[in-house]
């Protein structure tokens, strides 16, 4: 390897390390400044600009891969965009805030905890399940809509699939009348072999597939789950035959094949065994007192977010108006899933 390449790798590594350090600083700093305690100088000062004596308006999000393609860099741009809007800054001042601060949660539970525990977060880009799990006082304002997502009128859904590659025994397995592979057959493989999944908190990439098998009365907790972090990683795992079976969002595999210009027809590479019911896409929530119908700050923020997404749209994601009721079904499914899991665990223990 040439020296230049070595240097570039070292630069990349350093940049990554600084990125993690910055994210940690943001998270830590955000946590400190979001508290009710009297404001004090930020310990590192990397996350907020400019510093002021007033506490920041916190914009929370989870580690980047959970909300891909919304990256930490994209959130920094959003932060600068909001800060640069004078009416918004004045609205913040009227509400007793200084500037906009970013809070990058380290994971799903961390984000839920930060949403629940005082002082909470003011505006959060969160996974749908995180919103359903937390018990804070938040109102859904938007839903993120990707190119594969469906629905309208404040109800945007994504579907989950269980797929296998062409080397898997269930590839082109006999179908029932509704064109589905018998769930008991799927479950047998689901629990006994490595399965690529998005994350334990992904509705389409974990909860709904398991829930669907549970509903059929099958104990379908994956015996060897491999959590890949994103649907795209799941598809790559399956198509490369590292694992034979995976669960992810619908449409990601087709996108991937298109993006990599793979000429083979999808049906010759993988087989979708099961499609789950639609689950709501990830929401953007405001602290309820900043709900646009109650607060000038909320209205202004909603307007700015809409404008920012129009101008800087990562991965063709759009913002769609939404409301809390769009997540009722997911919340119910989650509760049922937890209940069924607990029952199954109890049976297992006994």
């Amino acid at each position: 390897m040439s020296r230049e390449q070595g240097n570039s790798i070292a630069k990349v590594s350093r940049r990554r390390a600084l990125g993690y350090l910055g994210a940690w600083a943001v998270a830590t700093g955000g946590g400190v400044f979001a508290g009710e305690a009297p404001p004090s100088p930020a310990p590192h000062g990397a996350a907020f600009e400019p510093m002021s004596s007033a506490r920041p308006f916190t914009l929370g999000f989870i580690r980047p891969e959970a909300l891909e393609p919304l990256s930490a860099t994209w959130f920094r741009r959003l932060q600068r965009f909001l800060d640069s809007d004078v009416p918004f800054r004045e609205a913040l001042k009227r509400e007793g805030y200084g500037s906009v601060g970013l809070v990058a949660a380290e994971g799903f539970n961390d984000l839920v905890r930060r949403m629940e525990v005082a002082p909470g977060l003011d505006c959060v880009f969160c996974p749908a399940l995180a919103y359903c799990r937390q018990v804070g006082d938040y109102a859904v304002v938007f839903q993120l809509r990707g190119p594969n997502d469906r629905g309208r009128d404040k109800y945007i859904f994504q579907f989950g699939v269980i797929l296998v590659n062409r080397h898997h025994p269930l590839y082109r397995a006999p179908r029932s009348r509704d064109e589905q592979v018998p769930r008991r057959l799927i479950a047998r493989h689901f629990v006994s072999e490595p399965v690529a999944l998005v994350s334990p908190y992904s509705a389409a990439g974990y909860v709904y597939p398991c829930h669907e098998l549970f509903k059929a009365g099958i104990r379908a907790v994956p015996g060897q789950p491999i959590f890949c972090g994103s649907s795209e990683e799941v598809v790559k795992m399956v198509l490369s035959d590292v694992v034979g079976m995976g669960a992810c969002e619908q449409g990601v595999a087709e996108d991937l094949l298109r993006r990599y210009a793979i000429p083979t027809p999808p049906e010759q590479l993988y087989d979708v065994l099961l499609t789950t019911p639609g689950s709501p896409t990830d929401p953007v929530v405001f602290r309820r007192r900043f709900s646009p119908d109650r607060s000038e700050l909320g209205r202004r923020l909603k307007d700015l977010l809409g404008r920012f997404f129009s101008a800087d749209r990562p991965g063709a994601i759009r913002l769609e108006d939404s409301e809390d009721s769009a997540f009722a079904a997911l919340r119910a499914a989650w509760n049922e899933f937890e209940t069924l899991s607990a029952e199954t665990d109890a049976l297992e223990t006994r």
Partner: protein
Amino acid sequence: MKRVDRTNLALMAVIALFAVFALGLLFWLKGRFEREREETIAAVTRHFSPAVLGLPDDLERTFRFADLEQIYATLIPHNAYVRDIVVTKRIAGRGERIVLPFQYSLLHADWQARLSRLERHPLSSGDIEYGAIYFDFDHSRLNSVRLAIGSLAVLLVLVLAVVARRLYVQEAALTRTTVELEEKKRELVELERLSLAGRLSANIFHDIRKPLLNIRLEVEEIEAAGPAAEDLRGRTAAIRRQVELFFNILRDLNIERFIRGDQAGAEFVSVNELLERSCALVRYERGGVEVVANFTPNLPPVYAFPYRLMQVFSNIILNAYQAMGSQGRLTLTTLQEGGEVVVRIADTGPGIPPEHLPRIFEPFHSTRQNSGGSGLGLYISKGIVEDMGGRIAVAATGPEGTCFEVRLPVGRAPSDA
């Protein structure tokens, strides 16, 4: 000769030094390329450690494709030595699976055969092989250097071969010239000896002329002294006839003047007569050769040195006799063509080999080097004829014989020209 050798040796030394320097430089470059290539392999291999790929039974802490692609994007584009890499991971119970680029096996149904053509570097941790990197090396730079080394070596060999050939050709030419010089030297000695013999013959003819004159006078006086015995009278008459015959021969041939190369002035002469006298001059070499004379009567005279022209004709006739080896036919033809008298002397000998034909009028060229030929006869003849304003040439030659043609201007003194 030594100077030429030194020049060639200096040239060869310069070429050899340059070639050694260039080859050294190229080998250094080749070594450098190969070293850097090895370093690249080591660096790429380091980036796919067990912490990145995971061991074969380690699927829960497995790699991320995004991370692998990021490493690839950092390492491979614009790499001087590696065109592409394919990374595989061993998975317990499943064998080797391609993880970078993930689409490789999807794009190439024969991916295993393709990988077998690439250079494989196993990834191992202790005794456990957890994957492999297949390198598609870019050999273009290394091949350029290899090509340059090969070309230079070939060029060096070619130059040395050319110089060696040049030396060989020079040496061969020198040897040939030396041999020819030695031969000509020997021929000159022979000519000198013949020349001396000729001059001596002239003196001898002159000297024996006097005693023979005295013998003839004595015989005439014996016969005039009165009647003698019949027997004695018959014997003196025989002596007188023999002496007369000798003088007739001398008169007819004018051999004395011929041998002396009589430098008397040019005159108008009859070519037919000179041809007859030339035949008579060399008749002792005739053997069984039939001589046919196709003379055109009443030819106009030519202005020439008669004895020199006789030397030309007798030389050609003598050559013809020797070529025919005492058997065959010699045809002498004279005729007039325009303002020229043409003499053709044709034999039925084996002809002149084509390779000798361009050189027969050159000095010291002879096809009878081992049978007394001096190689000067035709050369001298050509000079004599051209001095008289004429031309001499081989009109025809082949297996059926050779015909020499001499063309002389009709009755024109040089001053007339």
